[in-house]
């Protein structure tokens, strides 16, 4: 009999019905079937130890029957309890046969009594607890507590590197107003071509390219881009048959002149 009783409730047949006159109670007012049983037991006006479990079971079953007759919806656990009580009743009325493995009716009755007593005890305990001088009702804590206030003190962190970097960055920033970055001139191919066409003009003499470009080549920064763009453009002009280009030796000066007679191709 060490297993909890709930499983037992499920193993029993349908309940028998019986009439009783005290059943005007509303099932909604109860905290479950055990609570209802406790209420019914109290109506026997005897100590729980002296109640007639058989009478109690009959009252309960009658109550449930009335509820069902009225077609009131009833929670399943009330029906489970009814089934268990019906079984209990049958066990109580039929003497235990030898070799019967099932719990005896007396054992089941004792179990029910125990559960009712325990529930009643807990209910009384709850009432006693609530009747104690409770905090905030009869007993008070300090009404004006003086809580500990926490002052957060910041411990600042910075490394020497951070400091030096911050300084250096600012000093450099201060100098940047005097500094103008170099604007590198880049001759586009179109630009170089226009200039070459203009400089060579109608000249039919071989003239070195650098001579044509002399005035532009004065600034050393731009020399490379001017030469490169001009040379590339000159090749295009040669392809179009506008000029002729000649070089006498490797890395020697590049001579250019107007090609006579229009669009025939010249040799490089």
């Amino acid at each position, binding site marked *: 009999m060490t297993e909890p009783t709930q499983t037992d409730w499920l193993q029993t047949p349908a309940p028998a019905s019986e009439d009783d006159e005290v059943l005007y109670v509303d099932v909604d007012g109860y905290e*479950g079937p055990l609570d209802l049983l406790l209420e019914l037991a109290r109506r026997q006006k005897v100590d729980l130890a002296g109640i007639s479990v058989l009478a109690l079971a009959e009252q309960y079953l009658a109550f449930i029957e009335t509820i069902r007759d009225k077609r009131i919806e009833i929670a399943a656990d009330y029906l489970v309890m009814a089934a268990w009580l019906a079984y209990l009743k049958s066990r109580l009325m039929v003497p235990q046969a030898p070799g019967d493995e099932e719990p005896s009716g007396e054992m089941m009755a004792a179990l029910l009594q125990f559960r009712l007593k325990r529930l009643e*005890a807990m209910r009384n305990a709850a009432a006693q607890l609530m009747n104690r001088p409770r*905090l905030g009702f009869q007993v008070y804590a300090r009404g004006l507590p003086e809580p500990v206030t926490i002052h957060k003190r910041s411990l600042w962190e910075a490394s020497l590197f951070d400091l030096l970097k911050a300084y250096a960055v600012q000093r450099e920033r201060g100098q940047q107003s005097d500094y103008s970055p170099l604007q590198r001139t880049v001759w586009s191919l179109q630009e170089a071509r226009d200039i070459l066409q203009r400089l060579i003009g109608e000249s039919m003499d071989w003239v070195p390219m650098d001579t044509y470009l002399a005035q532009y080549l004065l600034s050393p920064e731009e020399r490379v881009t001017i030469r490169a763009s001009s040379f590339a453009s000159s090749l295009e002009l040669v392809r179009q048959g506008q000029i002729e280009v000649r070089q006498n030796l490797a890395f020697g000066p590049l001579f250019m002149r107007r090609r006579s007679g229009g669009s025939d191709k010249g040799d490089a």
Partner: protein
Amino acid sequence: MSGFADEEIAVDDDDRALIAERNLRVVEALLFGSSEPLASADIAVYLGEGADVEKLLATLAERYAGRGVNLVKRGSKWAFRTAEDLGFLLRREETENRALSRAALETLAIIAYHQPATRAEIEEVRGVATGKGTLDLLMEAGWVRMRGRRRTPGRPVTYGTTDAFLDHFGLESLGDLPGLEELKGAGLLSSRLPPSLQIPLPFDGPLREDEDPLDPDDIDHTDEPAEVDELQGATHPLDDDI
């Protein structure tokens, strides 16, 4: 101030008395200033290392005995509270705006007297299913906490009461629960049948052998995880101290 006995420096009785009196004032101020009970460890940090906090607390409690305000022990913590016998005078008009339902009340009593208790055990006593809301409400009130998980199939959560429960109902420990001895004598604290030999007593100490700690994500199931956590954390070191 600390360890003067070890160092065998002669500290005369006057000095000792002065130090003790100063420490008493500190303990008094700390407890008087707080609305929540304080553990002796909370107090110790404000005193010299050699201070015997428990003794100071006992001395202070003695001084306040019979006064309008008493120093009371609630679980492992201490607090100043108005004297119980003045309750009828101080009772405030404002009635309980949040009366506990009968279900919540019964559930609280069952947890208090049967702890550690699982939900199935609570339901077994009440003979009816316990809504999740009822337990949540009790945990929200700060009276009930999840303790751990029972080492049985399904690993059900075990519930117990908190120090705030003791504080609210004016109990020094679970041993002060009303009618505890009678209930124990009648075998009504058993979750089993009366013939069972062992009659358990309610227990709100550290986890028992048949309890596992809560799973990390159990905490998330409650509305106030921090509190549950804190309450649990707070119980352990103190139990060791006693």
